[in-house]
């Protein structure tokens, strides 16, 4: 991260001529990446500090900030397409970090069919997208946001709340009815199966937020107001007694099974930390026939169990894309993930499966970095595959 290639594509850019020096962006930026430049009076961007939350982009009144992720044009394109595809007039905008799987969304919101829009942080969706959706004939908009104090982008959730609070009365005046946009809170939380807990205290040791408590005698309990749903304890529990509610192991297993049956060999499965890689919206470009990805709330949630499961189902290579420790939104959990992946790699070597695992640290700030890692890994796996022939 130290040396920055000046030609490298950067995710957030300023059009400094448009900057009207209102400083809304620098007030909103949770990472102090945007600051008033005392010489020019305009705002300057320090890209290394930027976490690509998109709050500046969606709130800049002068359109002086541009981002390559989930901009108005691509969100519009997605909505047009998704409206046809999902045949529904309910839109659900979800924070990827807090969203449960779709079956749970249905239950949680009591809707049968909906148009999903998963973005890293609901705060990055500009107000005009809400209006655009209503213009398209969408009747209800549900926003599934994290609790304000759990927002990984610190302010994203509260910015979304403000947008909704501002829009609803206006829409009512225009005759769209009351509360067209509904805000639903949902944060991922751990749950413990006390029948399986062996009181080993591993979760107490690993939890970065001191949410796990172990009293003697007794099994572990969690203070859910402290839990931030990173899933590190789930991946570390030796007794398999922990789960992330609504993102259970079984759900990930089903997903692995489905994706590996979809792929053509040599199959590559990517576990992406949702804060490390911002994928294109569904339908923006066709995925390669031999690569599929699963987004997780943090790379530390990548259970070695799931990596092995993928290999058992005929996946030839598993790539784990995580944030660097400095960028980790979950207090250095990515380092722990790297350690367990390395350990698993050693064990795979022992049985003769060399080079099938790769852990990389990337950032959405420089979108090409992930592309490069994936490309290199793809070449490596294809080489192994053609050398060994079909199993």
């Amino acid at each position, binding site marked *: 991260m130290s040396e920055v290639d000046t030609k490298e594509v950067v995710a957030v850019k300023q059009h400094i001529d448009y900057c009207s020096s209102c400083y809304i962006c620098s007030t909103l930026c949770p990472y102090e990446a945007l600051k008033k430049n005392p010489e020019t009076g305009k705002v300057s961007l320090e890209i290394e500090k930027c976490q690509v939350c998109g709050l500046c982009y969606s709130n800049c009144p002068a359109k002086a900030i541009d981002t390559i992720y989930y901009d108005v044009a691509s969100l519009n394109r997605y909505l047009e397409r998704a409206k046809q595809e999902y045949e529904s007039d309910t839109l659900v905008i979800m924070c990827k970090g807090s969203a449960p799987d779709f079956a749970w969304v249905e239950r949680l919101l009591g809707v049968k069919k909906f148009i999903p829009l998963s973005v890293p942080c609901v705060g990055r969706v500009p107000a005009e997208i809400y209006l655009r959706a209503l213009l398209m004939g969408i009747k209800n908009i549900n926003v599934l946001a994290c609790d304000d104090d759990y927002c990984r982008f610190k302010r994203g959730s509260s910015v979304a709340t403000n947008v909704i609070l501002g829009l609803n009365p206006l829409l009512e005046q225009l005759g769209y009815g009351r509360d067209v946009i509904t805000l639903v809170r949902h944060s991922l939380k751990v749950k413990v199966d006390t029948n*399986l807990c*062996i009181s*080993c205290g*591993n979760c107490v040791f690993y939890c970065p937020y001191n949410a796990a408590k172990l009293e003697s005698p007794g099994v572990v309990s969690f203070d859910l107001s402290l839990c931030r749903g990173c899933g590190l304890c789930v991946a570390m*529990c*030796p*007794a*398999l007694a922990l789960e992330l509610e609504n993102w259970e192991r079984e759900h990930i297993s089903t997903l692995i099974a489905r994706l590996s049956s979809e792929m053509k060999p040599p199959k590559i499965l990517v576990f992406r930390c949702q804060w490390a890689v911002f994928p294109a919206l569904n339908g923006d470009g066709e995925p390669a026939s031999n690569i599929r990805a699963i987004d997780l709330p943090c790379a530390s949630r990548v259970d*070695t*169990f799931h990596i*092995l*499961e993928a*290999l*058992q189902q005929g996946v030839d290579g598993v790539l784990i894309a995580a944030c660097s420790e400095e960028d980790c939104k979950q207090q250095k959990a990515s380092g722990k993930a790297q350690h367990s992946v390395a350990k698993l790699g050693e*064990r*795979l070597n*022992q*049985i*003769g*499966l060399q080079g099938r695992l790769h852990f990389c640290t990337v950032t959405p700030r420089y979108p090409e970095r992930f592309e490069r890692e994936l490309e290199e890994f793809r070449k490596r796996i294809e080489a192994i595959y053609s050398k060994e022939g079909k*199993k």
Partner: protein
Amino acid sequence: MIITTQKPLDEILDFISPYTNILIAGCDGCTQPPRGLRETKTLSQLLELGGKLRNKGFTFKVTTVAKQCDPYLAAAILRPQMEGVEAVLSLACGIGVQELAQLFPEITVFPAQNTHFMGAEEREKGALEERCAGCGDCLLALTGGICPVARCSKGLLNGACGGSKDGKCELSPDRDCAWVLIYERLKQQGKLERLKEFRPPRDYQLSGWRVTQ
């Protein structure tokens, strides 16, 4: 805790290759790192993958026992699961493996672990270190809670040897000199006079091989 490390997987694969129906038994007891349900499952997945490369299919059943060294507990948990099982792979320490072997004498019980010592985790170094040698004559009360029998390379009872240098042992420079640790601890407690007490040679019989209850 009893500290163990996993045997190389190809060694385990060699053990179990004559069998098909195998029970993998974890131990939630004192083996460290934990060898519970997750580890049994992970091991079954790894062995299945390894078997596949060797054209050998296995059927694994995975389970875990709170303490394999407790034969009553082990019997209660494992007996109902033994139908059709041709071999058992135990993730316990050597004691657990032997208890299972005694419990199921007609079946081969394989160790999946190498057992090292009674020890604890040294978090700073990310290592597991020996802490107790089971000498049968505990002198921790006199040595500030640091055991020279287990932690001094030479097991000395009356202070450091001449090879102690910068707080490290002459046998391996990354190993702390137990007697320097003891000195520092006693100094902290204001009990340095304890070092002047002479301790006679150990009675090795006390470590023994059997204790009657």
